[in-house]
C-alpha cells in the first residue's frame, strides 16, 4: 500500500511544526525542518507514516540543535556579531514567554522531554511507546513525572522573568 503523503502532510504538518518548534525554538526554522522532513519521507512507504515523520523530524531537530551549539560557540568568538544584535531586537513578549518555557523544558531529562513533546503533538500512549522504545505501561508514569517537573521548573523560572517587568510598571 502506498502512503498518500499529501494527506499525511495536511493532517500532520501543524503538529509537526509545533513539535519542532519546541526543539529548535525558531518558528521559521521549525517550518523549514517540517518541509524537509516530508521531502525525506516522500520516497518511503512506512507502515505508520505519522510516527515515521516524527522520527525523521526528531533526528533533523537533533542535528540542528548540535549545529546550533557549535554556531553559538562560533558567534561568541565573533563578539558583537550581527546575528546577536538582530536577536536582541526581536525579543518580543511572545519570545520571552517561549524562552521561559524553553528554560523550564531544559530542566527535564531528555526522555521525559521527548515523551512530553510527543504527547503535546497529539500522540497517544501506544504511539509514544513505539516512538521512544519505552514500554506502554511506563508512559503514564513518565508523563506524570515530566508534567510535574515542567510545572515546577516553570514556576521557578517565571519569577525571574516577570520581576523586572513588574518593577518597570
Amino acid at each position, binding site marked *: 500500500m502506498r502512503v498518500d503523503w499529501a494527506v499525511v502532510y495536511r493532517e500532520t504538518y501543524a503538529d509537526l511544526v509545533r513539535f519542532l518548534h519546541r526543539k529548535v525554538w525558531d518558528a521559521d526554522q521549525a517550518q523549514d525542518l517540517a518541509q524537509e522532513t516530508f521531502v525525506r519521507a*516522500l520516497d518511503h512507504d512506512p507502515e505508520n507514516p505519522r510516527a515515521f515523520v516524527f522520527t525523521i523530524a526528531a533526528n533533523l531537530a537533533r542535528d540542528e540543535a548540535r549545529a546550533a551549539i557549535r554556531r553559538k560557540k562560533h558567534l561568541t568568538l565573533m563578539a558583537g556579531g550581527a546575528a546577536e544584535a538582530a536577536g536582541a531586537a526581536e525579543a518580543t513578549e511572545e519570545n520571552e514567554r517561549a524562552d521561559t518555557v524553553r528554560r523550564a523544558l531544559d530542566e527535564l531529562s531528555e526522555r521525559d522531554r521527548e515523551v512530553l513533546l510527543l504527547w503535546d503533538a497529539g500522540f497517544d500512549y501506544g504511539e509514544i511507546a513505539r516512538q521512544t522504545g519505552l514500554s506502554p505501561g511506563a508512559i503514564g508514569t513518565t508523563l506524570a513525572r515530566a508534567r510535574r517537573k515542567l510545572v515546577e521548573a516553570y514556576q521557578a523560572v517565571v519569577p525571574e522573568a516577570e520581576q523586572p517587568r513588574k518593577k518597570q510598571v
Partner: protein
Amino acid sequence: MSDVQHLDDGRLHAYLDGHLRDGTVGRDYVERHLAECAACRARLEEERRVRDRARAILGAAGPVKVATPPFEAVLERAERKRASRRRVPPTVVLAWAASLALAVTVGWYARSLVLTGGGTGTVATVAQDADAPAEDVRAGGIEAAPPAPRQIAQSAPARAQPAPAPREEAVVVAEPAAPAVADRPLANLAAVEAKAAVDTEVPPLRIAEAPAPSAAAAPGAAAERVRLRAAPPAAAADLAEQSWRTVTRAEAERRLGGPVAMIPGLPSLGTSVFGTGDAAVARTLQVLGAGLTIELLQQRATAPAAMPQAGRAMGSEPGQSLTVEWEGFSVTGRALVPADSLRRLLSRLHRP
C-alpha cells in the same frame, strides 16, 4: 484498603489522558478504586491540575497558528534536491580537472626537455619552405612564429583552459600547410599570441629565433607580426574578459548569463568576473563581520573545467570551502568559519 493498592501517578495520568479505555480491566479497576478511596480522588484532582498546567505551559510556547503551505512546495523542494543529487559532485569534477592539469603540466615539461635542441630547427624549415611571393612569406611568417602559441596551447590546460580547443590550435600550428592557416581567422592566432604576451614571459625569446633568411627579406611581415602582438584589435574584447575584472552586478549577470550568487543581508564588497559565457567565473566578496569575509565563486555547473582558474585566485584565502548547486551554477563559498556555519550561510543564497 491497604497502601499497596493505591493508584500510582502513572495510572492516574493514563486515566486522565483517556488511555485506559472503557471496559478494559485497567479503567474498571481505577474507577472502582476511586469510588472507594477519597485519598486517591484528591490525588486525581491534584494530578489533573498538574496535567492541565503542563498543557497550558507548553501551549504558551507558540507558534500560535501555523498555516500549512501547499503540499506542492514539498514536491518542488524534493525535485530540486533530486536534480542537484543527479549531478556529479563538484569536488569530483575539480579533482578530475586537477589531475588532468597536473598530468599535462608534467607532460609539457618532459616534452620541452626533449625538444630543446630540435624545436627551433622545425620552425626554420617551415619558414624556408615559404620561398615564393610576399603574401606567402607573410603567411609563413605568421605561421612560423607560433612555437610560442604552441607552447601556450600546450601549457594552457595546466592552467585549466577548456582542454579540447587549445589542442586543436596546436595541431594547426604544427602543420606547415598554408591552407590550414588561411581557414583560421588571424585574430585567433593573434589572440593566443597576445595572451602569451600577457600571461607568460617565455614567448618573445622563441619568436626571435624564428626569422629565416627569406623571412628577413620581408620586413613588412615582421612588422605585421609585431603589430598583431602589440595590439590585436579583434581580440581586445576577448582579452578583457580573460582576466579578473571587477564589474557591476548587471555586467556580471550578463557575463554569467544568470543571477549573481549573493547572501542576502550581508554587505557586498563587489563582484569580479573571469571569462564569459559558460566558462565565466564570478567572485563575490561579502562581509560577515569585523575583518571576516565570505568569498563566493560561481560558475556554470556544466563547465567545471574553468574552476581551477578561480582556484588560483582564491588559493591564498584561508578557511573552509564548500560547493553547492544554485540556480544551475555551482557556487563555492570560502570563509574562516566552521563548516556547518558555512553550509548554513550557503543555504541562504537568495532565490531570484
